[in-house]
């Protein structure tokens, strides 16, 4: 069910984040993260188009949902098992612009994989980001295992895992959700529904109305929220996190959003999306609407907003320069770490 709250026009716009227990500082921070996510994403796309990085997978259009979700988590307490688009989430969990750029350039210092994996394959023990791979949905059972292990160790935490709506059709989603349901484990399943699996549109992916309809089959709640509204996502996630920490088990949160870019730098979405559709998508950029909200409720001013943007740009510039110059790994190092050494 679509979360009603998220769809109605808020009566008193300035109060929405207050009600959720978010301070003005918090929402500015959220916005800052959204900008940084977008900035990095745009930069990597440009670098790819300039032939400087071989591959990019973009999260453009999904930042609001990601930041909304990540803010409901606690990076010191919780673990995340993000999918390849979840750049916003790993930034909140502690990765820096430099980390991201080192990964884009596949340099030795890349904390995710030492340049072994494509960008978007996150991982950092320090930041509680569990190493991910390319085959979709394999991380979902891992999240369940993290939750199970934490419970066995007496650690009260939440395991967050994200995936696209297309990936919710994989067996691993089903098996993992069922396992988590049976064992009432503290897992939040976060579906970023951007209405496409590469070129395959929703109607060819799923016949249910919402991916969240699947939760009932695993004995836990599922909600669908507006992923363009970080506060709506935050609210739903907060509830899911509270349930998890309270021993009430898993939840499925589905956020509806649009992928503003092609699937990846190798894709050309004009072959399967109309111009009108692409225009329409651009017309509700979640970053612009959140900026408007913050300006409207006086948390940001035009000036402070501009300053934030500039701060982000500088950070990304520095990171890019650093990463571009950083050394590649040594060829023979490829032989290492198949097993413990």
């Amino acid at each position: 069910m679509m979360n009603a709250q998220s769809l109605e026009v808020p009566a008193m716009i300035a109060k929405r984040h207050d009600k959720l227990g978010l301070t003005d500082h918090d929402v500015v921070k959220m916005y800052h993260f959204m900008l940084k996510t977008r900035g990095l994403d745009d930069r990597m796309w440009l670098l790819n188009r300039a032939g400087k990085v071989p591959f990019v997978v973009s999260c453009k259009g999904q930042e609001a949902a990601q930041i909304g979700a990540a803010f409901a988590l606690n990076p010191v307490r919780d673990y995340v098992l993000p999918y390849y688009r979840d750049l916003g989430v790993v930034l909140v969990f502690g990765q820096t612009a430099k980390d991201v750029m080192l990964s884009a350039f596949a340099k030795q210092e890349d904390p995710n994989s030492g340049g072994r994996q494509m960008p978007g394959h996150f991982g950092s023990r320090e930041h509680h980001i569990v190493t991910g791979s390319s085959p979709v949905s394999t991380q979902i059972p891992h999240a369940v295992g993290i939750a199970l292990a934490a419970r066995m160790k007496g650690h009260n935490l939440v395991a967050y895992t994200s995936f696209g709506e297309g990936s919710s059709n994989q067996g691993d989603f089903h098996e993992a959700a069922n396992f988590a349901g049976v064992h009432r484990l503290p897992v939040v399943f976060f579906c970023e529904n951007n209405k496409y699996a590469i070129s395959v549109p929703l109607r060819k992916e799923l016949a249910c109305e919402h991916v969240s309809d699947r939760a009932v089959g695993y004995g836990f709640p599922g909600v669908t929220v507006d992923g363009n509204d970080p506060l709506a996502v935050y609210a739903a996630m907060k509830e899911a996190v509270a349930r998890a920490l309270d021993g009430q088990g898993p939840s499925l949160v589905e956020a509806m959003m649009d992928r503003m870019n092609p699937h990846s730098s190798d894709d050309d979405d004009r072959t399967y999306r109309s111009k009108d559709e692409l225009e329409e998508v651009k017309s509700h950029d979640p970053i612009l609407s959140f900026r408007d909200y913050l300006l409207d409720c006086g948390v940001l001013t035009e000036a402070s907003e501009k300053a934030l943007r500039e701060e982000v740009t500088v950070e990304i510039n520095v990171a890019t320069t650093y990463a571009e110059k950083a050394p590649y790994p040594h060829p023979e190092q490829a032989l290492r770490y198949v097993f413990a050494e």
Partner: protein
Amino acid sequence: MTVKLYIDSIHDALQEEMRRDDGVFVVGEDVGVRGGVFRVTQGLIEEFGEARVIDAPLAESAIVGVAIGAAAYGLKPVAEIQFADFILPAVNQLISEAAKMRYRSNNDWSCPLVVRAPYGGGVHGALYHSQSLEALFHHVPGLKIVMPATAADAKGLLLSAIRDPDPVLYFEHKALYRWIKDEVPEGEYTVPIGKARCVLEGDDITVITYGLMVHHATEAARELEKEGISTELIDLRTVAPLDSEAILAAVRKTGKVLIVHEDNKTGGVGAEVSAIIAEKALFDLDAPISRLCGPDIPAMPFNPPQERFYMLNSEKIAQAMRQLAAF
């Protein structure tokens, strides 16, 4: 005869066969409007419609499993796995089901299925868009595996695979798609499954390989020719079942054999090739049977130096050939 790109040859063969036999259909991720992420199925949905060019939900076990059901019913599904690496969720359907349907039903049911999957590295694909998957399946009774190296074989083996009464894995190398072109016979043209091809005749050493490495080995052989070393070069084309006769004949001719593949060394197809030789032609050998293969690490890192480190190329192959010739 037309000179065609490897990828176009696959596309055209598929199209021809779909025109010829309306039991043939395509199912996979993004095979429809997008025409496949590599564009192998481009234009097919326009010509044959949504019913025969099916954009499947993102679930490989279902893609293969549904195709198996359709094959059992008598159709000729050509399932596409977007990257060979993503065949792994479908392994149970392939090994427990497709491979065993005829056997377990004592010849009552069968599974004339083709699974196409782009494989191989050197394309900045990193760990999960670069792997060679043939060794996972060559051990399985009931599966055939073809791996064309040329545009002509790409056609001839695809037609044979589709017409084969049993399941065939058709691995196509991503790096060959738009690199290799050669003459492809028009119309009816099949290459028998299970028959190797002699690429070059020679007397000094024998090189046995398949896939992308056929081209690197050819280059290496031409290099060595200049150095006075003549190479018998075999392209296996089918890695299951192996063409033992061709392998043994080529080995007997020179007494020195180098087996080359991109895939990891241990337990690769090369191990079986070597074992066949050691069992059947041991006393024809003048040198140890050598294998030059990918190292035993997950294939392959994303960063260019380590990707290059993993991948074989004509120099590395030439080096191994020189060593063997000098033995």
